[in-house]
Protein backbone atom coordinates (compact mmCIF):
# COMPACT_ATOMS: atom_id res chain seq x y z
CA UNK A 1 0.00 0.00 0.00
CA UNK A 2 3.01 2.22 -0.37
CA UNK A 3 1.47 3.88 -3.39
CA UNK A 4 -1.25 5.63 -1.45
CA UNK A 5 0.23 6.27 1.95
CA UNK A 6 -0.80 9.94 2.04
CA UNK A 7 -4.34 9.17 1.03
CA UNK A 8 -4.64 6.38 3.60
CA UNK A 9 -3.49 8.81 6.26
CA UNK A 10 -6.04 11.39 5.14
CA UNK A 11 -8.82 8.81 5.25
CA UNK A 12 -7.76 7.71 8.74
CA UNK A 13 -7.76 11.35 9.88
CA UNK A 14 -11.21 11.82 8.38
CA UNK A 15 -12.59 8.81 10.23
CA UNK A 16 -11.07 10.02 13.46
CA UNK A 17 -12.62 13.47 13.08
CA UNK A 18 -16.04 11.97 12.42
CA UNK A 19 -15.75 9.88 15.56
CA UNK A 20 -14.80 13.03 17.48
CA UNK A 21 -17.83 14.84 16.11
CA UNK A 22 -19.97 11.79 16.92
CA UNK A 23 -18.81 11.76 20.53
CA UNK A 24 -19.71 15.44 20.94
CA UNK A 25 -23.14 14.84 19.42
CA UNK A 26 -23.77 11.84 21.67
CA UNK A 27 -22.81 13.90 24.72
CA UNK A 28 -25.30 16.57 23.71
CA UNK A 29 -28.15 14.06 23.53
CA UNK A 30 -27.23 12.46 26.85
CA UNK A 31 -27.01 15.89 28.46
CA UNK A 32 -30.31 16.97 26.88
CA UNK A 33 -32.09 14.02 28.47
CA UNK A 34 -30.53 14.76 31.87
CA UNK A 35 -31.24 18.48 31.63
CA UNK A 36 -34.85 17.79 30.72
CA UNK A 37 -35.46 15.39 33.60
CA UNK A 38 -33.65 17.53 36.17
CA UNK A 39 -34.57 20.95 34.74
CA UNK A 40 -30.83 21.68 34.75
CA UNK A 41 -30.47 25.11 33.12
CA UNK A 42 -26.70 25.15 33.42
CA UNK A 43 -26.43 21.90 31.53
CA UNK A 44 -28.90 23.16 28.92
CA UNK A 45 -26.70 26.20 28.35
CA UNK A 46 -23.67 23.96 27.96
CA UNK A 47 -25.45 22.03 25.22
CA UNK A 48 -26.22 25.26 23.37
CA UNK A 49 -22.58 26.32 23.63
CA UNK A 50 -21.38 22.93 22.44
CA UNK A 51 -23.40 23.37 19.26
CA UNK A 52 -20.78 25.85 18.01
CA UNK A 53 -18.03 23.31 18.56
CA UNK A 54 -20.00 20.75 16.55
CA UNK A 55 -20.66 23.28 13.76
CA UNK A 56 -16.92 23.95 13.56
CA UNK A 57 -16.19 20.24 13.38
CA UNK A 58 -18.65 19.89 10.53
CA UNK A 59 -16.92 22.66 8.57
CA UNK A 60 -13.48 21.17 9.23
CA UNK A 61 -14.58 17.72 8.08
CA UNK A 62 -16.31 19.16 5.03
CA UNK A 63 -13.08 20.90 4.04
CA UNK A 64 -11.12 17.68 4.53
CA UNK A 65 -13.54 15.89 2.20
CA UNK A 66 -13.41 18.60 -0.46
CA UNK A 67 -9.61 18.61 -0.33
CA UNK A 68 -9.54 14.86 -0.81
CA UNK A 69 -11.93 15.01 -3.75
CA UNK A 70 -9.89 17.78 -5.36
CA UNK A 71 -6.47 16.29 -4.73
CA UNK A 72 -6.95 12.54 -4.67
CA UNK A 73 -9.91 12.10 -7.03
CA UNK A 74 -11.23 9.12 -5.10
CA UNK A 75 -13.14 6.40 -6.93
CA UNK A 76 -15.15 3.31 -5.98
CA UNK A 77 -14.94 2.50 -2.25
CA UNK A 78 -12.86 5.61 -1.55
CA UNK A 79 -15.41 7.81 -3.30
CA UNK A 80 -18.20 6.30 -1.22
CA UNK A 81 -16.09 6.78 1.88
CA UNK A 82 -15.68 10.49 1.25
CA UNK A 83 -19.21 11.19 -0.03
CA UNK A 84 -20.88 9.25 2.79
CA UNK A 85 -18.77 11.25 5.25
CA UNK A 86 -19.95 14.48 3.62
CA UNK A 87 -23.59 13.45 3.92
CA UNK A 88 -23.32 11.89 7.35
CA UNK A 89 -21.86 15.00 9.02
CA UNK A 90 -24.87 17.00 7.87
CA UNK A 91 -27.09 14.61 9.78
CA UNK A 92 -24.81 14.74 12.84
CA UNK A 93 -24.91 18.52 12.73
CA UNK A 94 -28.71 18.49 12.57
CA UNK A 95 -28.86 16.14 15.56
CA UNK A 96 -26.77 18.61 17.53
CA UNK A 97 -29.08 21.43 16.41
CA UNK A 98 -32.06 19.53 17.76
CA UNK A 99 -30.29 18.90 21.09
CA UNK A 100 -29.74 22.63 21.21
CA UNK A 101 -33.42 23.29 20.35
CA UNK A 102 -34.46 20.96 23.19
CA UNK A 103 -32.19 22.92 25.54
CA UNK A 104 -33.90 26.18 24.54
CA UNK A 105 -37.24 24.64 25.42
CA UNK A 106 -35.87 23.45 28.78
CA UNK A 107 -34.82 27.03 29.52
CA UNK A 108 -38.35 28.19 28.68
CA UNK A 109 -39.81 25.87 31.32
CA UNK A 110 -37.94 27.86 33.97
CA UNK A 111 -40.32 29.71 36.29
CA UNK A 112 -43.36 27.89 35.00
CA UNK A 113 -45.27 25.18 36.81
CA UNK A 114 -43.53 21.83 36.27
CA UNK A 115 -45.62 19.41 34.25
CA UNK A 116 -45.07 15.70 34.30
CA UNK A 117 -42.65 14.31 31.76
CA UNK A 118 -44.34 11.34 30.21
CA UNK A 119 -42.52 8.05 30.71
CA UNK A 120 -42.79 7.28 26.97
CA UNK A 121 -41.04 10.54 26.13
CA UNK A 122 -38.04 9.47 28.21
CA UNK A 123 -38.16 6.07 26.53
CA UNK A 124 -38.30 7.73 23.11
CA UNK A 125 -35.34 9.96 23.95
CA UNK A 126 -33.44 6.89 25.13
CA UNK A 127 -34.14 5.01 21.90
CA UNK A 128 -33.08 8.04 19.83
CA UNK A 129 -29.84 8.22 21.76
CA UNK A 130 -29.26 4.51 21.31
CA UNK A 131 -29.83 4.89 17.57
CA UNK A 132 -27.23 7.67 17.31
CA UNK A 133 -24.69 5.64 19.24
CA UNK A 134 -25.47 2.46 17.28
CA UNK A 135 -25.22 4.21 13.90
CA UNK A 136 -21.84 5.67 14.88
CA UNK A 137 -20.60 2.31 16.16
CA UNK A 138 -21.67 0.73 12.88
CA UNK A 139 -19.73 3.48 11.09
CA UNK A 140 -16.59 2.78 13.09
CA UNK A 141 -16.63 -0.95 12.38
CA UNK A 142 -18.03 -0.56 8.85
CA UNK A 143 -20.91 -2.93 9.46
CA UNK A 144 -24.00 -2.64 7.25
CA UNK A 145 -25.60 -5.46 9.22
CA UNK A 146 -25.26 -3.54 12.45
CA UNK A 147 -26.44 -0.30 10.83
CA UNK A 148 -29.58 -2.01 9.58
CA UNK A 149 -30.52 -3.01 13.14
CA UNK A 150 -30.62 0.64 14.10
CA UNK A 151 -32.44 1.74 10.97
CA UNK A 152 -35.49 -0.36 11.89
CA UNK A 153 -35.59 1.11 15.41
CA UNK A 154 -37.05 4.28 13.94
CA UNK A 155 -40.45 2.57 13.71
CA UNK A 156 -40.47 2.21 17.48
CA UNK A 157 -39.68 5.91 17.85
CA UNK A 158 -42.58 6.84 15.58
CA UNK A 159 -44.95 4.69 17.66
CA UNK A 160 -43.77 6.28 20.88
CA UNK A 161 -44.13 9.73 19.39
CA UNK A 162 -47.78 9.10 18.56
CA UNK A 163 -48.41 7.83 22.07
CA UNK A 164 -46.77 10.87 23.70
CA UNK A 165 -48.55 13.24 21.35
CA UNK A 166 -51.98 11.76 22.17
CA UNK A 167 -51.22 11.90 25.87
CA UNK A 168 -50.17 15.56 25.59
CA UNK A 169 -53.33 16.43 23.65
CA UNK A 170 -55.35 14.79 26.38
CA UNK A 171 -53.48 16.75 29.05
CA UNK A 172 -54.04 20.02 27.18
CA UNK A 173 -57.78 19.45 27.30
CA UNK A 174 -57.95 18.47 30.97
CA UNK A 175 -55.34 20.96 32.22
CA UNK A 176 -55.72 24.03 29.95
CA UNK A 177 -54.04 26.28 32.51
CA UNK A 178 -50.64 24.76 31.66
CA UNK A 179 -51.19 24.37 27.95
CA UNK A 180 -48.02 26.30 27.08
CA UNK A 181 -45.80 23.75 28.85
CA UNK A 182 -47.58 20.90 27.07
CA UNK A 183 -47.09 22.56 23.70
CA UNK A 184 -43.39 23.05 24.44
CA UNK A 185 -43.18 19.45 25.63
CA UNK A 186 -44.65 18.34 22.32
CA UNK A 187 -41.85 20.26 20.59
CA UNK A 188 -39.28 18.52 22.79
CA UNK A 189 -40.79 15.19 21.82
CA UNK A 190 -40.74 16.13 18.14
CA UNK A 191 -37.06 17.13 18.35
CA UNK A 192 -36.13 13.75 19.83
CA UNK A 193 -38.16 12.09 17.09
CA UNK A 194 -36.21 14.11 14.49
CA UNK A 195 -32.94 13.09 16.14
CA UNK A 196 -33.94 9.47 15.59
CA UNK A 197 -34.68 10.25 11.93
CA UNK A 198 -31.21 11.70 11.45
CA UNK A 199 -29.67 8.74 13.28
CA UNK A 200 -31.50 6.54 10.80
CA UNK A 201 -29.93 8.57 7.97
CA UNK A 202 -26.47 8.13 9.47
CA UNK A 203 -27.05 4.37 9.61
CA UNK A 204 -28.22 4.44 5.99
CA UNK A 205 -25.01 6.21 4.94
CA UNK A 206 -23.09 3.41 6.61
CA UNK A 207 -25.03 0.87 4.53
CA UNK A 208 -24.36 2.94 1.41
CA UNK A 209 -20.67 3.08 2.16
CA UNK A 210 -20.38 -0.67 2.70
CA UNK A 211 -22.73 -1.96 0.02
CA UNK A 212 -22.58 0.82 -2.54
CA UNK A 213 -26.33 1.17 -2.69
CA UNK A 214 -29.07 2.76 -0.69
CA UNK A 215 -31.13 0.76 1.70
CA UNK A 216 -34.62 0.43 0.27
CA UNK A 217 -37.11 1.63 2.81
Amino acid at each position, binding site marked *: *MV*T*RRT*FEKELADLHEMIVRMGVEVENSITDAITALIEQDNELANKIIERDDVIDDLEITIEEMCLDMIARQQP*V*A*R*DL*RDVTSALKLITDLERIADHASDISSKILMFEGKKRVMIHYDLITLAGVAKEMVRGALDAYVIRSAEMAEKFIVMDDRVDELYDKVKNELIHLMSVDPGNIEQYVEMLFVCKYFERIADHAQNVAEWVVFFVQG*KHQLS
Partner: protein
Amino acid sequence: MAKTYIYDTKKFSLWYGSKQALKDIDLKIAANEVTAIIGPSGCGKSTYIKTLNRMVDLIPSVRTEGEIIYDGRDIFDKTIRVEELRTRVGMVFQKPNPFPKSIFENVVYGPRIHGVRNRSELEDIAERSLRAAALWDEVKDRLKDNAYSLSGGQQQRLCIARVLAVEPEVVLMDEPTSALDPLSTLKIEDLVQELKEKYTIVIVTHNMQQASRISDMTAFFLLGELIEFDNTEKIFRQPADKRTEDYITGRFG
Protein backbone atom coordinates in the same frame (compact mmCIF):
# COMPACT_ATOMS: atom_id res chain seq x y z
CA MET B 1 -32.09 0.25 -27.12
CA ALA B 2 -30.19 -2.86 -28.16
CA LYS B 3 -26.55 -2.25 -28.90
CA THR B 4 -24.94 -3.06 -32.20
CA TYR B 5 -21.65 -4.80 -31.69
CA ILE B 6 -18.80 -4.14 -34.03
CA TYR B 7 -16.34 -6.59 -32.52
CA ASP B 8 -17.03 -9.87 -30.84
CA THR B 9 -13.97 -11.37 -29.20
CA LYS B 10 -14.49 -15.03 -28.39
CA LYS B 11 -12.17 -17.10 -26.24
CA PHE B 12 -9.23 -15.25 -27.68
CA SER B 13 -5.70 -16.06 -26.54
CA LEU B 14 -2.39 -14.75 -27.84
CA TRP B 15 1.20 -15.84 -27.31
CA TYR B 16 4.47 -14.08 -28.02
CA GLY B 17 6.62 -17.17 -28.52
CA SER B 18 5.99 -19.22 -25.40
CA LYS B 19 4.75 -16.27 -23.34
CA GLN B 20 1.00 -15.96 -23.17
CA ALA B 21 -0.06 -12.31 -23.38
CA LEU B 22 -3.84 -12.71 -23.62
CA LYS B 23 -5.88 -15.44 -21.98
CA ASP B 24 -9.36 -16.45 -23.08
CA ILE B 25 -10.64 -12.94 -23.72
CA ASP B 26 -14.39 -12.59 -24.26
CA LEU B 27 -15.24 -9.01 -25.08
CA LYS B 28 -17.82 -7.29 -27.24
CA ILE B 29 -17.26 -3.77 -28.46
CA ALA B 30 -20.38 -1.75 -29.22
CA ALA B 31 -20.66 0.56 -32.21
CA ASN B 32 -20.62 4.32 -31.61
CA GLU B 33 -19.38 3.96 -28.09
CA VAL B 34 -16.08 4.71 -26.45
CA THR B 35 -14.60 1.60 -24.90
CA ALA B 36 -11.67 2.21 -22.58
CA ILE B 37 -9.15 -0.45 -21.72
CA ILE B 38 -7.26 -0.01 -18.49
CA GLY B 39 -4.79 -2.08 -16.53
CA PRO B 40 -1.21 -2.02 -15.27
CA SER B 41 1.77 -2.27 -17.62
CA GLY B 42 2.10 -5.71 -19.12
CA CYS B 43 -1.56 -6.57 -18.62
CA GLY B 44 -2.15 -7.13 -22.32
CA LYS B 45 -4.22 -4.04 -23.06
CA SER B 46 -1.93 -2.74 -25.80
CA THR B 47 -1.61 -6.22 -27.27
CA TYR B 48 -5.37 -6.49 -27.38
CA ILE B 49 -5.93 -3.15 -29.12
CA LYS B 50 -3.14 -3.90 -31.61
CA THR B 51 -4.83 -7.20 -32.37
CA LEU B 52 -8.06 -5.45 -33.41
CA ASN B 53 -6.47 -4.23 -36.64
CA ARG B 54 -3.86 -6.99 -36.74
CA MET B 55 -0.94 -4.74 -35.99
CA VAL B 56 0.35 -7.65 -33.91
CA ASP B 57 1.03 -9.44 -37.20
CA LEU B 58 4.11 -7.28 -37.46
CA ILE B 59 5.62 -9.06 -34.48
CA PRO B 60 7.17 -12.39 -35.39
CA SER B 61 6.37 -15.50 -33.36
CA VAL B 62 2.84 -14.38 -32.52
CA ARG B 63 0.35 -17.20 -32.24
CA THR B 64 -3.39 -16.87 -31.56
CA GLU B 65 -6.34 -19.02 -30.59
CA GLY B 66 -10.02 -18.23 -30.53
CA GLU B 67 -11.52 -15.59 -32.77
CA ILE B 68 -12.31 -11.91 -33.12
CA ILE B 69 -15.37 -11.39 -35.24
CA TYR B 70 -15.49 -8.12 -37.16
CA ASP B 71 -18.21 -7.49 -39.70
CA GLY B 72 -19.26 -11.12 -39.61
CA ARG B 73 -15.81 -12.63 -40.15
CA ASP B 74 -12.92 -13.66 -37.99
CA ILE B 75 -10.19 -11.08 -38.56
CA PHE B 76 -7.66 -13.92 -38.72
CA ASP B 77 -9.63 -15.62 -41.49
CA LYS B 78 -7.51 -16.32 -44.59
CA THR B 79 -9.93 -14.35 -46.75
CA ILE B 80 -9.41 -11.13 -44.80
CA ARG B 81 -7.28 -8.55 -46.53
CA VAL B 82 -5.23 -6.94 -43.80
CA GLU B 83 -4.83 -3.63 -45.68
CA GLU B 84 -8.59 -3.33 -45.96
CA LEU B 85 -9.01 -4.14 -42.28
CA ARG B 86 -6.51 -1.43 -41.36
CA THR B 87 -8.35 1.06 -43.54
CA ARG B 88 -11.61 0.37 -41.79
CA VAL B 89 -9.93 0.22 -38.40
CA GLY B 90 -7.56 3.16 -38.00
CA MET B 91 -5.08 3.66 -35.23
CA VAL B 92 -3.63 6.59 -33.31
CA PHE B 93 -0.49 6.03 -31.29
CA GLN B 94 0.99 7.26 -28.07
CA LYS B 95 3.44 9.63 -29.73
CA PRO B 96 2.19 11.74 -32.59
CA ASN B 97 3.83 10.37 -35.73
CA PRO B 98 3.16 12.73 -38.61
CA PHE B 99 5.04 12.14 -41.86
CA PRO B 100 7.79 14.67 -42.69
CA LYS B 101 5.48 16.32 -45.20
CA SER B 102 3.10 19.24 -45.29
CA ILE B 103 -0.02 19.26 -43.14
CA PHE B 104 -2.12 18.82 -46.26
CA GLU B 105 -0.08 15.90 -47.57
CA ASN B 106 -0.28 14.16 -44.20
CA VAL B 107 -4.05 14.22 -44.26
CA VAL B 108 -4.52 13.12 -47.85
CA TYR B 109 -1.83 10.45 -47.70
CA GLY B 110 -4.34 7.63 -47.22
CA PRO B 111 -6.83 8.76 -49.88
CA ARG B 112 -3.95 9.24 -52.33
CA ILE B 113 -2.80 5.67 -51.76
CA HIS B 114 -6.37 4.58 -52.37
CA GLY B 115 -6.24 6.27 -55.75
CA VAL B 116 -7.89 9.64 -55.22
CA ARG B 117 -6.14 11.98 -57.69
CA ASN B 118 -8.58 14.84 -58.13
CA ARG B 119 -7.17 17.92 -56.43
CA SER B 120 -10.47 19.44 -55.36
CA GLU B 121 -11.63 16.10 -54.01
CA LEU B 122 -8.44 15.83 -51.97
CA GLU B 123 -8.97 19.37 -50.71
CA ASP B 124 -12.48 18.48 -49.64
CA ILE B 125 -11.24 15.41 -47.82
CA ALA B 126 -8.50 17.42 -46.10
CA GLU B 127 -10.92 20.09 -44.91
CA ARG B 128 -13.52 17.60 -43.76
CA SER B 129 -10.98 15.48 -41.89
CA LEU B 130 -9.24 18.44 -40.28
CA ARG B 131 -12.59 19.84 -39.19
CA ALA B 132 -13.60 16.47 -37.73
CA ALA B 133 -10.30 16.40 -35.85
CA ALA B 134 -10.98 19.94 -34.52
CA LEU B 135 -7.81 21.24 -36.14
CA TRP B 136 -9.09 23.07 -39.21
CA ASP B 137 -9.38 26.53 -37.67
CA GLU B 138 -5.82 26.35 -36.40
CA VAL B 139 -4.19 25.23 -39.65
CA LYS B 140 -6.42 26.30 -42.54
CA ASP B 141 -4.05 29.16 -43.49
CA ARG B 142 -0.90 27.06 -43.33
CA LEU B 143 -1.75 23.76 -44.93
CA LYS B 144 1.52 23.81 -46.84
CA ASP B 145 3.61 24.11 -43.68
CA ASN B 146 5.54 21.11 -42.53
CA ALA B 147 3.61 18.99 -40.03
CA TYR B 148 6.55 19.18 -37.64
CA SER B 149 5.88 22.90 -37.20
CA LEU B 150 2.75 22.00 -35.23
CA SER B 151 2.65 21.58 -31.46
CA GLY B 152 2.48 18.06 -30.01
CA GLY B 153 -1.25 18.35 -29.38
CA GLN B 154 -1.84 19.64 -32.91
CA GLN B 155 0.31 16.87 -34.35
CA GLN B 156 -1.79 14.30 -32.54
CA ARG B 157 -5.00 15.81 -33.89
CA LEU B 158 -3.35 15.78 -37.34
CA CYS B 159 -2.75 12.05 -36.92
CA ILE B 160 -6.41 11.66 -36.00
CA ALA B 161 -7.38 13.66 -39.11
CA ARG B 162 -5.13 11.36 -41.17
CA VAL B 163 -6.98 8.34 -39.80
CA LEU B 164 -10.38 9.93 -40.45
CA ALA B 165 -9.44 10.84 -44.05
CA VAL B 166 -9.88 7.24 -45.14
CA GLU B 167 -13.31 7.12 -43.46
CA PRO B 168 -12.78 4.24 -41.06
CA GLU B 169 -15.45 2.65 -38.90
CA VAL B 170 -13.30 2.17 -35.87
CA VAL B 171 -10.57 4.35 -34.39
CA LEU B 172 -8.15 2.62 -32.05
CA MET B 173 -6.22 4.90 -29.73
CA ASP B 174 -3.21 3.63 -27.83
CA GLU B 175 -2.57 6.12 -25.02
CA PRO B 176 -3.17 9.03 -27.38
CA THR B 177 -2.62 11.77 -24.81
CA SER B 178 0.19 10.42 -22.67
CA ALA B 179 2.71 12.69 -24.43
CA LEU B 180 0.47 15.76 -24.37
CA ASP B 181 -0.01 18.66 -21.98
CA PRO B 182 -3.31 18.89 -20.02
CA LEU B 183 -4.96 21.36 -22.39
CA SER B 184 -4.15 19.35 -25.51
CA THR B 185 -5.33 16.28 -23.63
CA LEU B 186 -8.71 17.88 -22.94
CA LYS B 187 -9.02 18.86 -26.61
CA ILE B 188 -8.46 15.26 -27.66
CA GLU B 189 -10.94 14.08 -25.02
CA ASP B 190 -13.58 16.49 -26.32
CA LEU B 191 -12.81 15.30 -29.81
CA VAL B 192 -13.32 11.68 -28.81
CA GLN B 193 -16.81 12.57 -27.59
CA GLU B 194 -17.62 14.11 -30.96
CA LEU B 195 -16.07 11.29 -32.94
CA LYS B 196 -18.15 8.59 -31.32
CA GLU B 197 -21.23 9.93 -33.08
CA LYS B 198 -19.77 8.61 -36.33
CA TYR B 199 -17.11 6.15 -35.25
CA THR B 200 -16.47 3.44 -32.72
CA ILE B 201 -13.59 4.27 -30.43
CA VAL B 202 -11.40 1.90 -28.46
CA ILE B 203 -8.88 3.64 -26.26
CA VAL B 204 -6.09 2.27 -24.13
CA THR B 205 -5.17 4.63 -21.35
CA HIS B 206 -3.01 4.71 -18.24
CA ASN B 207 -4.94 7.71 -17.07
CA MET B 208 -7.81 6.39 -15.02
CA GLN B 209 -9.52 9.76 -14.79
CA GLN B 210 -9.42 9.92 -18.54
CA ALA B 211 -11.10 6.54 -18.85
CA SER B 212 -13.77 7.62 -16.38
CA ARG B 213 -14.31 10.95 -18.16
CA ILE B 214 -14.61 9.84 -21.74
CA SER B 215 -15.64 6.20 -22.01
CA ASP B 216 -19.01 4.48 -22.04
CA MET B 217 -17.62 1.07 -21.23
CA THR B 218 -14.44 0.15 -19.39
CA ALA B 219 -12.51 -3.10 -19.54
CA PHE B 220 -9.96 -3.92 -16.87
CA PHE B 221 -7.13 -6.23 -17.90
CA LEU B 222 -4.70 -7.89 -15.52
CA LEU B 223 -1.92 -10.33 -16.42
CA GLY B 224 -3.45 -11.05 -19.80
CA GLU B 225 -6.92 -11.67 -18.45
CA LEU B 226 -10.05 -9.60 -18.78
CA ILE B 227 -11.03 -9.17 -15.14
CA GLU B 228 -14.06 -6.95 -15.49
CA PHE B 229 -15.98 -5.27 -18.28
CA ASP B 230 -18.93 -3.04 -17.52
CA ASN B 231 -20.44 0.41 -17.82
CA THR B 232 -17.84 3.00 -16.90
CA GLU B 233 -19.99 4.42 -14.07
CA LYS B 234 -20.28 0.97 -12.57
CA ILE B 235 -16.53 0.32 -12.81
CA PHE B 236 -15.62 3.59 -11.13
CA ARG B 237 -18.39 3.65 -8.54
CA GLN B 238 -18.76 0.07 -7.54
CA PRO B 239 -16.63 -2.45 -9.38
CA ALA B 240 -17.67 -6.07 -8.90
CA ASP B 241 -14.17 -7.51 -8.67
CA LYS B 242 -11.85 -6.66 -5.82
CA ARG B 243 -8.85 -6.60 -8.18
CA THR B 244 -10.54 -3.89 -10.25
CA GLU B 245 -11.25 -1.90 -7.11
CA ASP B 246 -7.68 -2.29 -5.88
CA TYR B 247 -6.32 -1.10 -9.22
CA ILE B 248 -8.53 1.94 -9.76
CA THR B 249 -8.12 3.09 -6.17
CA GLY B 250 -4.36 2.66 -6.43
CA ARG B 251 -4.10 -0.10 -3.86
CA PHE B 252 -1.65 -1.88 -6.08
CA GLY B 253 0.44 -0.60 -8.91
